[in-house]
């Protein structure tokens, strides 16, 4: 069947079997491998994408459910070669070790600070509670998201002044 949606700002129309999982559509059909498959059982968040701005698990989503929706993957974060503030945060605060959870963590972090520009540490930890990291112990992931929130705040005040 045909499914039409937008991914990282680009309109796409694909022909898929209805049983295709979004994570497979993105990785195999669209060739974007930044969205990872960790558990494949809806538990880890490695496959996180934003669906109309909200983080969801793409291993637990059927391709036809994308009809008319907007999807953002990690490939859609940087704009015109410029890293998104969330990516800068993970770079500056070393918010990763192996990097497997990182695309999901960054997308969840980005959605979190968009909804709540000044999150507390607890709110950040709550916000990433659906995403598992086996390496970092989360400390630097929390700092990375705080870094991005602070950077956005500075940028916004700079814009206002």
């Amino acid at each position, binding site marked *: *069947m045909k499914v039409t949606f937008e991914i990282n700002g680009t309109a796409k129309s694909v022909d898929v*079997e*209805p*049983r*295709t*999982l979004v994570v*497979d559509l993105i990785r195999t059909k669209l060739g974007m491998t930044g969205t990872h498959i960790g558990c*494949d*059982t*809806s538990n880890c*968040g490695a496959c*996180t994408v934003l*669906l109309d701005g*909200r*983080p*969801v*698990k793409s291993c*637990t*989503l*059927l391709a*036809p*459910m994308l*009809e008319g929706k907007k999807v953002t993957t990690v490939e859609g974060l940087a704009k015109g070669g410029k890293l998104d503030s969330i990516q800068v945060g993970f770079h500056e605060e070393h918010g990763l070790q192996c990097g497997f959870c990182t695309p999901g963590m960054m997308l*969840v972090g980005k959605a979190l600070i968009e909804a709540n520009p000044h999150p507390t540490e607890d709110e950040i930890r*709550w*916000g990433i*509670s*659906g*995403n598992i990291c086996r390496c970092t112990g989360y400390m630097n992931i929390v700092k990375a998201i705080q870094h991005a929130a602070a950077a956005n705040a500075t940028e916004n005040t700079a814009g206002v002044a």
Partner: protein
Amino acid sequence: MFPAAFDYIAPGALDEVLSLLGQHGDDAKVLAGGQSLIPLLKLRFAAPVIVIDIGRVDGLEGISRENGHVRIGARTRHRDVESATDLRGTLDVLLDAAPLISDPLIRNMGTVGGSICHADPAGDWGAVMLAVGAEFVVKSAGEERVLPAAGFFQGPFTTGLQSNEVMTEIRIPVGSGKSGGTYLKLERKVGDFASVAAAVHIVLGGDGRVASAGIGLCAVGAHSIKATAAEAALVGQEPTDDVIAAAARLAGDAAEPKADIRGSAEYKRDVARVFVQRGLHTAIDRAQGAAA
């Protein structure tokens, strides 16, 4: 893992959903948020011939108040209940339960109606709906039924819903009395299904006595349990510590837990008792603080 092949259709109108369901019966599966159905499809525990996605039907989403009821569209996401802060004071138990369901990503997709229809004995909404005395509006082609939550949950993943019916709405009666409630959940880690959970919802009369009491138990039986003897022990009483402790013991007796990796049956039964006791204290404090 990927599901067995199926046909997929996402009608724009409820009538079309209902006629398709009437036509395909047990061969069809309704898809709401997919957060229980898709894992089952991937494991091939479910292999429907046709999946009917209700995601494009208008009017199934949202929370509103009307004629002494709070109405929740069946396709309202867990996340949207979590942020419906105006329910505070009227339906505390919903607001306390929503953020404890799974994790933020599942809550962005999963729906209240989907959870109720799925009827996992460890699903949180079942116990909540029993506590608040909800009614479920279900439709099939040419017919509408209103099913009380009490009696709806019949066994693991088994409900009073027929295969040609769709749940469209959850109706929760809200009176003018002072009410309070809460949800307590024991989980092994954040985002986990409950090892044990309890939902409590109390209404106090003008005389300070308990006008009505609702207690639902989660993950301590073959389905969500309404602790009716405990509820009856509270109604008409002044909510003293002794009355509360006695009701909590009755709620513990109503639990039918099984021993598993999460704990012994004895342990779970006692957690249910303790949660109901703590929950009742919180509910009554909140009701006493609430404006009439």
